[in-house]
């Protein structure tokens, strides 16, 4: 941090966590710090870099598909690109995403704690994340060529291909371990470190969703760990586990893979839902509608979401009973998700809405997530799934949920908490501009995929029939608009961290949760004295008058 940051330090306050001098100084003060806020920032930086790498691969894939036949790369490169795009975006961006960055930074603050339960394990999980991420990148560069299995590593292909599958497998394994440690930390923190008076139903809703997420991380991730390990052992020593040549059953691999990887999509989306529940009451200036319903629907999503994995495999030849049960359970997940959406909309109803950037991203989240969610229910229907299985319809669906949902949720969180984290404000006008670029670009990019998927365009294909050309063209143009928006956003964030307008107000948005009652940026230990909680988290009616007075003065 530079000298003009001294201005952030306000009279008589302890230095903020950004200036805090511990045992180590300089860069060591960051990479050896066990302060949950600094670890959150470390995650933010590393995650952003990997995100941009993932964006680059996606952008190039789209560019290749702008016209039929070869455009800029050969088929093998294309296969590696969609694999790398998937591995990086899923394991390095959306899964760690909100919990690792904003969870780390704000979970202890929101429950009135000084840190997480195991600060050193927290730092270790960042190192594991970094090692896993670097391994994934190294796998691109080493001889043998980048992995081309898709992010799903389906056997037997992943056993037979000569590309660098081993390194990618170990990368995913290590990232899984990092995710487990974060989950374990958060569960323990929520149980043990809530401030006096903060009962379960006085917790902010983002804590409920992070808590549910953490459980899924702890309970589901080991399965992918062992599954990937078995593939590695099979490749390495030729032990017969999944390989049909040795009597194994590749469908079992798919089951084990999705036992983790389906709950993983709830690891991705639940924290974003928490962010939405946090932001809406602030910018609608209303108490959240249906607090308990939103809280319990997080738990219900985590619970149901763990029992629906086989809907990724309706075409492998399961028993009819199996298909029926998984189809039914899949549709049940829509209920708690819809409960959330209805409650958010009901909170906005008759609110005093302030259309600031965080809320814009949140509204985009609700819109895009609803499209993604409803098309998800369509895929849960057995007969429809046979038509659209492995088509770009699926690709469109999960990008609406994962990018339109989690991605936009992440951006919402960033624009909401940015002033608190850095004590500076981003360019708000520019923020609105790129929000619209991203929103419009997003829909141009992914909506045509619904249509062409429905018409039969398979996913992961390098080439396509001329009849799909116009859809692909629109989609690629959409990717340019979206990427332009993303780059503007990255510029805005990067620039504002160093040169943005300084913010010293504690409560810039008029929020009611604990992070808005502490210094901006927070001091090393968050609170001077651990607060005692007496009220529910979103008491707008009671406090509105007080807030107005503060704003006027």
């Amino acid at each position, binding site marked *: 941090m530079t000298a003009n940051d001294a201005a952030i330090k306000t009279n008589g306050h302890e230095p903020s966590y950004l200036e*805090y001098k511990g045992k180590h100084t300089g860069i060591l003060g960051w990479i050896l710090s066990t302060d949950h806020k600094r670890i959150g920032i470390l995650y933010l930086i590393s995650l952003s870099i990997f995100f941009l790498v993932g964006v680059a691969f996606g952008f190039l894939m789209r560019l290749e598909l702008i016209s039929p036949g070869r455009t800029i790369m050969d088929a093998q490169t294309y296969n590696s690109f969609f694999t790398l795009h998937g591995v990086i975006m899923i394991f390095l961006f959306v899964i760690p995403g909100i919990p690792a960055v904003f969870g780390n930074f704000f979970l202890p603050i929101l429950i009135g704690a000084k840190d997480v339960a195991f600060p050193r394990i927290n730092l270790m999980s960042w190192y594991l994340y970094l090692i896993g991420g670097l391994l994934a990148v190294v796998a691109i560069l080493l001889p043998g060529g980048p992995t081309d299995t898709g992010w799903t590593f389906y056997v037997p292909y992943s056993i037979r291909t000569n590309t660098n599958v081993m390194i990618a497998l170990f990368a995913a394994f290590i990232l899984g371990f990092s995710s487990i440690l974060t989950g374990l930390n958060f*569960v*323990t923190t929520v149980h043990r470190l809530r401030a006096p008076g903060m009962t379960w139903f006085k917790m902010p809703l983002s804590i409920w969703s992070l808590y549910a997420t953490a459980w899924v991380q702890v309970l589901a991730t*080991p*399965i992918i760990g062992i599954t990937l390990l078995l593939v590695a052992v099979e490749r390495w020593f030729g032990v017969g586990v999944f390989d049909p040549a040795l009597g194994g059953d590749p469908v079992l691999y798919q089951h084990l893979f999705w036992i983790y990887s389906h709950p993983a999509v709830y690891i991705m989306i639940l924290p974003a839902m928490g962010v939405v529940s946090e932001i809406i009451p602030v910018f609608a200036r209303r108490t959240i509608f249906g607090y308990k319903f939103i809280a319990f629907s997080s738990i219900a999503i985590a619970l149901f979401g763990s029992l629906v994995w086989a809907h990724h495999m309706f075409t492998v030849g399961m028993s009819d009973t199996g298909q029926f049960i998984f189809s039914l359970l899949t549709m049940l997940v829509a209920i708690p998700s819809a409960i959330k959406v209805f409650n958010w909309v009901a909170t906005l109803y008759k609110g005093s809405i302030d259309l600031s950037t965080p809320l814009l991203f949140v509204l985009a989240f609700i819109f895009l997530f609803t499209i993604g969610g409803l098309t998800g229910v369509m895929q849960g229907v057995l007969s429809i799934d046979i038509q659209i299985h492995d088509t770009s319809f699926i690709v469109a669906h999960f990008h609406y949920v994962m990018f339109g949902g989690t991605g936009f949720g992440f951006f919402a969180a960033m624009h909401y908490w940015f002033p608190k984290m850095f004590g500076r404000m981003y360019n708000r006008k520019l923020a609105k501009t790129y929000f619209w670029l991203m929103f419009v670009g997003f829909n141009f990019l992914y909506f045509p995929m619904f249509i062409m998927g429905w018409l039969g365009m398979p996913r992961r294909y390098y080439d396509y029939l001329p009849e799909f050309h116009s859809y692909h063209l629109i989609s690629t143009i959409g990717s340019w608009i979206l990427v332009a928006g993303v780059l503007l956003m990255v510029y805005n964030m990067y620039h504002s961290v160093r040169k943005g307008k300084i913010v010293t107000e504690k409560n810039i948005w008029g929020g009611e949760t604990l992070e808005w009652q502490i210094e901006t940026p927070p001091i090393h230990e968050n609170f001077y004295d651990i607060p005692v909680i007496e009220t529910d988290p979103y008491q707008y009616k009671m406090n509105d008058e007080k807030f107005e007075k503060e704003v006027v003065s």
Partner: protein
Amino acid sequence: MSSTEHTAGTHVHRDDVGSRMGMWLFLFTELILFGGMFLLYSVYRFQYADEFHLAAKELNTIMGAFNTAVLLTSSLTMVLAIIAIQRDQKALSILLQLITIFLALFFLVNKYFEWTAKFHYGIYPGGEELLAKSSGEILFFGLYYVMTGLHGIHVIIGMFLIAVMTRQTRTGTINKDSYVRLENAGLYWHLVDIIWIFLFPLFYLIT
């Protein structure tokens, strides 16, 4: 919000219940890690019941039973080590921890002889003898090596963990007022033990 008495950075946090809770959560993840393999085992056992039965005859039940006894005894010495430190009998606790490590080593040596004997007969992944057998038997031995192998790795990790605890007991970091680490190491050791208790019947006793 007065900050007069507050000194930044001196905050020391100790929460034994929290530590134990973290350890239990970690043990859950270990159980599920092995759970994935038990799932595979049960599906393949169902698919190839006869061949599993046949393959299990190759394993030495007496050797397996002996190792089970060794590991169970080591769990006992581990518990006694914790009780000893609770009663402030430091030397006894160290002795019991060392016995635990020794028994773990003994288990591994046995395992080594078991594995090498199999290798000697050509029963190893990719070995000709094994590949000549039926699919069910190949899968049985595949799972046998992977599951006992991963268990073996856990035994080694456990040994190191207990060795660190022994050192900390000696230096006094672990003492009669603060022994949650030793307890957590014990919990880990019991997990290693209980996984073996399931592996033993599933591989050795199904003949």
